C-alpha cells in the first residue's frame, strides 16, 4: 500500500469515525459547562484561542464536524458497491451437503408427497414475510427464501442523512440570517432595519406594521399566550395580515416571524435649543438612544412606577453619556425636559408604549435539515426492524415421506435467529401434521 493510500485508509476507517464521535461528544459537553457568552473583562489566552465562550461555532468544533462528515462520506461510499450487491436477490440454491454446513441447519421428515411439502413450505415462508424461489430436480425440489435484504442499505441511508443535515445547516448558515427587534405597537419597520437582517436584499423591500400585541391569561392570572397581529407591506401596500403567537410563527416569502419578547418602550423626543424637533425615538429599559449629530447618548436605565399612583406619575431613571464617558444621571417624569450637553439640546420622555419583541429569521436550510432527519429515521428504522435472513431447503421424496433439509444464515442477531429458526421448523412440522390429519379425515369420509 502506498503512503497516500495508507493515509486515506486510516482516515476513512471506523476507528477514525469513533475517535471523532468521542471528540465531538467531549467538546459538546465542555460547551454545556462553560457559560456560552462572551465574558466581561479580559479573556485568557486559552479561552481566546479556543473560543471557549462559543464552543459550537469555534473553528476547532467546526473542523471536527467537517472531519466527521468527510470520514462518513469516505466510509459510506467505500462500502456502497458491496452493499448494492447485497440488496440484489441472487436466486441461487444450495444442495444438501452445502446446507448441512450452515451454522443453523436441521433434517427431518414430513408425511406425504413432494408437491404437497413444497406448497406447505412455500406458504409458511410467504406468511412469515419471505420471498421464495424454487427449482425442481429429479425426485427432489431445491428452494431458497430470503427477507430483509434492504437491511444493508439502512446504515448507508443513515450516514448519508447525517451529511444531508450538515449540508442543510451549512446552507442555512451561509444564506440565512436572523435578527431581533422590539417594535412598538402602531409602528412600522423595514426588514433591513432589523439588526442582523442587513443581508436581506433591499430590492424586495418588505415592511412590517405592528397592529396589536396582547397577552391572554388563565384563570389564575398566569399567561396562556402572547400574540401579535402584524401586517406585511410590500411597496407600501398591505399584502397580508396575520396573528402570530408562541409556537405559531408567521411565515412570509421564506421569512419567519416569532414571538420572543414583550414589554414597554419609553418614547423619547430630543429638541434643539430653539425648541425645534431634532429626533424622535423609543428605547427599552437598558437600551441606549444615540442623539443624531452629537456625541451624546441617553441610557434608559429603569422605569419607576409609583405604588398606587397613576401612569402619569411614572418616572424614568436615565444616564447621559458623552462618548463613552458618563455625563450625568437622574430621574425624569413624562414631558419633563432634561438638558443634554452644552449646545442647549434637551430631551424628554413623552410616555410608554407597549412593544412586541419579534425574532425575524430566514433559514433556507430548514427543508434540507428536515429531509435529512426523515431519511435518518428511515435509515435507523430499517436497521432496527428489518431482519435479514436467508434460508435454503431441499425436499426429497423417499417412499411415503419427504426428507426436508433446511438451513439458514442471518447477519444480525444470530442468537435470536436461532430462536426464530427453531420456531419455523416446529411450525412446519405442526402444519404438516395438521394437513396430514385433515387429509386422512377426508379420505375416511
Amino acid at each position, binding site marked *: 500500500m502506498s503512503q497516500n493510500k495508507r493515509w486515506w485508509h486510516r482516515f476513512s476507517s*471506523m*476507528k477514525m*469515525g*469513533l475517535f471523532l*464521535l*468521542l471528540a*465531538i*461528544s467531549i467538546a*459538546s*459537553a465542555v*460547551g*454545556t*459547562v462553560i457559560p*456560552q457568552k462572551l465574558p466581561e473583562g479580559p479573556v485568557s489566552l486559552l479561552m481566546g484561542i479556543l473560543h471557549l465562550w462559543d464552543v*459550537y461555532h469555534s473553528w476547532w468544533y467546526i473542523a471536527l464536524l467537517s472531519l466527521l462528515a468527510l470520514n462518513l462520506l469516505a466510509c459510506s461510499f467505500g462500502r456502497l458497491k458491496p452493499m448494492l450487491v447485497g440488496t440484489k436477490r441472487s436466486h441461487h440454491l444450495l444442495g444438501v451437503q452445502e446446507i448441512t454446513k450452515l451454522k443453523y441447519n436441521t433434517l427431518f421428515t414430513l408425511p406425504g408427497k413432494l408437491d404437497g411439502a413444497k406448497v406447505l413450505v412455500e406458504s409458511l415462508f410467504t406468511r412469515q414475510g419471505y420471498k421464495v424461489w424454487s427449482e425442481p430436480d429429479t425426485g427432489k425440489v431445491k428452494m431458497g427464501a430470503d427477507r430483509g435484504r434492504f437491511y444493508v442499505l439502512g*446504515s448507508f441511508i443513515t450516514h448519508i442523512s447525517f451529511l444531508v443535515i450538515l449540508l442543510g*445547516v451549512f446552507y442555512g448558515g451561509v444564506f440565512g440570517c*436572523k435578527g431581533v427587534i422590539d417594535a412598538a405597537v402602531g409602528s412600522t419597520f423595514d426588514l433591513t432595519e432589523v439588526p442582523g437582517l442587513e443581508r436581506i436584499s433591499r430590492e424586495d423591500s418588505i415592511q412590517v406594521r405592528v397592529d396589536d400585541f396582547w397577552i391572554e391569561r*388563565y384563570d*389564575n392570572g*398566569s*399567561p*396562556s*399566550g*402572547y400574540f401579535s397581529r402584524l401586517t406585511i407591506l410590500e411597496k407600501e401596500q398591505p399584502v397580508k395580515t396575520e396573528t402570530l*403567537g*408562541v*409556537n*405559531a*410563527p408567521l411565515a412570509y416569502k421564506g421569512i*419567519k416571524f*416569532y414571538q*420572543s419578547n414583550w414589554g414597554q418602550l419609553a418614547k423619547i423626543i430630543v429638541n434643539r435649543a430653539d425648541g425645534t424637533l431634532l429626533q424622535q425615538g423609543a428605547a427599552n429599559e437598558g437600551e441606549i438612544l444615540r442623539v443624531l449629530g452629537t456625541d451624546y447618548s441617553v441610557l434608559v436605565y429603569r422605569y419607576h412606577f409609583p405604588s398606587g399612583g397613576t401612569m402619569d406619575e411614572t418616572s424614568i431613571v436615565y444616564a447621559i453619556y458623552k462618548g463613552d464617558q458618563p455625563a450625568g444621571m437622574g430621574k425624569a417624569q413624562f414631558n419633563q425636559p432634561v438638558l443634554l450637553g452644552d449646545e442647549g439640546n434637551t430631551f424628554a420622555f413623552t410616555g410608554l408604549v407597549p412593544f412586541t419583541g419579534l*425574532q425575524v*429569521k430566514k*433559514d433556507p436550510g*430548514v427543508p434540507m*435539515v*428536515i429531509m435529512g*432527519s*426523515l431519511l*435518518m*429515521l428511515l435509515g*435507523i*428504522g430499517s*436497521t*432496527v426492524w428489518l431482519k435479514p435472513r436467508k434460508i435454503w431447503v431441499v425436499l426429497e421424496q423417499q417412499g411415503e415421506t419427504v426428507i426436508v433439509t433446511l438451513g439458514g444464515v442471518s447477519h444480525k*442477531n*444470530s*442468537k*435470536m435467529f436461532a430462536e426464530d429458526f427453531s420456531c419455523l421448523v416446529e411450525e412446519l412440522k405442526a402444519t404438516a401434521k395438521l394437513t396430514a390429519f385433515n387429509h386422512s379425515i377426508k379420505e375416511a369420509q
Partner: protein
Amino acid sequence: MNSCENMAFMVTFISYSVAMVFYLLYFVSRKTGAGKLATTTAGIGWIANTMALLVRSINAGRLPFANGYEFLLAFAWGTILVYLWFEYRHKFKTAGLFVLPLAWLLLAYVAVKIPVEQKLIVPLMPALKSHWLSVHVATAVIAYGAFALSFGLAIMYLLREREDIDNRPGRERLIERLPDAELLDELSYKTIMFGFFFMALVIVSGAIWAEQAWGSYWCWDPKETWSLITWLIYGGYLHARLTHGWRGRPAAVLAVIGFVAVLFTFFGVNYLLAGLHSYA
C-alpha cells in the same frame, strides 16, 4: 395531586415493590409460581401507573408531560412497559430483578424528593402549548425505557461474565441461573438499537418543535446537547460493536455509560446546568 391520583400512585409503588420481591424469589427458587406472581404484580403496578397518568391527564386536560413529576411518572411507566413487552417476547423473567428497581427508584424519588408544590397541576406555559410536546415526550419515555432495560441487561451480562471467568466446578451459584452471557449481550444490543431509534425521534421531534417555538431547530441548549451526547454514545456503541467486534464486556460497559448519560440528560442537566429546557 388529588386523592384518586394519590391512590393510584401508592398502588403503583407498592405493586412494583412487591413485584421486586417476587422476581427475587423466582430468581432464587426457580419456582414458576413465583415467576407468575412477579409478572402479575408488575402488570398490576403498570396498570395503576397508567391510571395515575390517566387521572392526571383528565384533571389537567392535557397529556401528563409538563413537569418533572409528571415525566418521572411517565419514565417509570415507559420502563415497565418496555420491560413487560420484552418479558412477553423473550419469555425471560430474571431481567425483572434488574429492571424493576430502576422504575422503583424513580417513583421513590418522586415520593421523597419532589415537594408537593411541584406536583400541583399548573396550566401549560405558552412555550409548551404545542402538539409536539406529546410526540417529543412520549418518544422520550419509550427511548429512556429501552435504555433502562438495556442497562439492566448489561449489568446482568457483567455479573454473568465474571462468573463464567472464575467458574469453579462442583458449585452451583446463583449467578449461573442468569441466562447465557452471549444471549444477554445480544438482547442488550437489540434493546439499544430500539432505544436509539426512539432517541432519534426524540431529537428530531424536538428540533422541529424548537424551530416553531424558539425560532431555531438547534440552539445548543444543555438538555439538547446532552441528549445528542447520549445519542452519540449509543451510536458509538453500535459502531464499535458492528465493525470492531466490541461485544461482551466492552459493549456492556459502554451500555452502562450510555445509561449514565441518559440519567445525566434527565436529572443532571436540570439540577446542574441552566438552559431553555427549564420546565422539564
